[in-house]
């Protein structure tokens, strides 16, 4: 799919612990690799920049959307695709308690608004599936050149 990225991870920690790591901005900064100006407040924007080595000048604004304690945390922020094209994506964290801890799902969606991602739409069939493997095309053409 070219409009979203979905990741799931099982964490051996209680939902409350995971929730704090997501929504306490100082903890968020540690694992997300960013520096943020202030706390997450629904409906408000937080300014930040990346602390990824080599990307420290990448500045962004996080617009907090939903904060449903220990269930859902979401925000929107800009995505840069390296071709200087941008759009805003929505990042949604959902938490589910499990016998061993927490199931955390992250979905980042909205990439279909990027012109470069929209180009991939021509490879879809009319049910929205991939009828031609893009990876195979690129590999084939790379090998052939």
């Amino acid at each position, binding site marked *: 799919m*070219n409009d979203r990225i979905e990741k799931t991870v099982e*964490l051996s920690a209680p939902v409350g612990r995971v929730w704090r790591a997501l929504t306490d901005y100082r903890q968020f900064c540690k*694992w997300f690799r960013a520096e943020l100006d202030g706390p997450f407040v629904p409906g408000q924007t937080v300014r930040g920049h990346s602390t990824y080595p080599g990307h420290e000048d990448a500045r962004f604004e996080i617009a907090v959307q939903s904060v449903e304690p220990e269930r859902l945390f979401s925000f929107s922020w800009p995505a840069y695709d390296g071709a200087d094209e941008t759009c805003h994506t929505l990042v949604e964290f959902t938490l589910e308690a499990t016998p061993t801890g927490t199931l955390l799902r992250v979905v980042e969606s909205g990439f279909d608004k990027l012109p*470069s991602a929209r180009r991939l739409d021509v490879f879809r*069939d009319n049910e929205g599936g991939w009828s031609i493997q893009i990876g195979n095309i690129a590999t084939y053409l790379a090998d052939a050149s």
Partner: protein
Amino acid sequence: MFAALGDETRLTVLAKLTGGEPQSIARLTVGTKLSRQAVTKHLRVLHDAGVVHSVRVGRESLFELETKPIEGARAFLEGVSAQWENALMRLKALVEP
């Protein structure tokens, strides 16, 4: 119904172009039930999407796949995906005892 037919045409054209060689409209039409007009129309859609470009050889226009936007889009999404995986591993290390 028309949209479905349109998709099939476009995908047929794309499948022929994945052979890697630039092809003329005539060659893209051969062996299919598609009209030259239908093929031309879909080449235009693909061209506007930036996945096909034309090359003039003599009096003919030949069409070939543009690999850069395809690879670029794919690489970008893979990069974002990898960043999330790394971030979630760091989150895991932070919250687990």
